[in-house]
């Protein structure tokens, strides 16, 4: 299963702007984030609270729709999904 990951602002500086991630079998959003955290201490630091909670300022979108970080974190990603990770918006 391949998923496209986009990252912006501080998360872009850690993960890079865009990458394709290949996962074995089904994977949830949480599993994908855990994979990033295990590969990147900087990402772990920036995104996670102790006990594996997501920091409040981590915003997520799947296929350009906002994801509720509490309710939807176990959602299984589909092949071709696009996950976007970014901090709170700060335009204008």
């Amino acid at each position, binding site marked *: 299963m391949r998923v496209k990951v*986009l990252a*912006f*602002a501080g998360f*872009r500086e850690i993960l890079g702007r865009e990458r394709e991630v290949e996962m074995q079998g089904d994977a949830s959003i949480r599993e994908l984030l855990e994979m990033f955290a295990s590969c990147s201490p900087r990402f772990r630091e920036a995104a996670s609270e102790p006990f594996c909670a997501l920091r409040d*300022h981590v915003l997520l979108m799947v296929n350009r729709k906002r994801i509720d970080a509490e309710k939807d974190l176990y959602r299984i990603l589909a092949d071709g999904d696009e996950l976007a990770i*970014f901090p709170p*918006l*700060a*335009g*204008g």
Partner: protein
Amino acid sequence: MAPAVEITEEEISLEQMMQRARSSQAGAVVSFLGTVRNDGIEWMEVEAFRDLALSELEAIRQEAMSRFSLQAAEVAHRTGNLAVGEAIVAIVCSAAHREDAFSGCRYILEQLKSRAPLWKKEISAEGGRWVEGE
């Protein structure tokens, strides 16, 4: 003719936006220009989730057009590296009457800040700092 919604690496021309928004049906034209303020920073970096930001800005623009009976609405947001004093965002709304032009401009600005995927980083002598959303 430039589109009514723009995300651009080039300097924003408020003048051209005003020209497009003015018309003989519009008695009132209100503009907002947000610029890089000198808080001891050296420059500002602005980043966008470009195509999503464009579609969100267009949705906001259309909401403003119908809610406030605007004659025209123009939005431009800059991306890339900006010097102090340069324009980050420009909004122009025209309407038959001033209330609508002001309300439309405020609406687009507040919605842009809360809904458009855009980020700013301030770079000072001490390093960079991503601006926290409001």
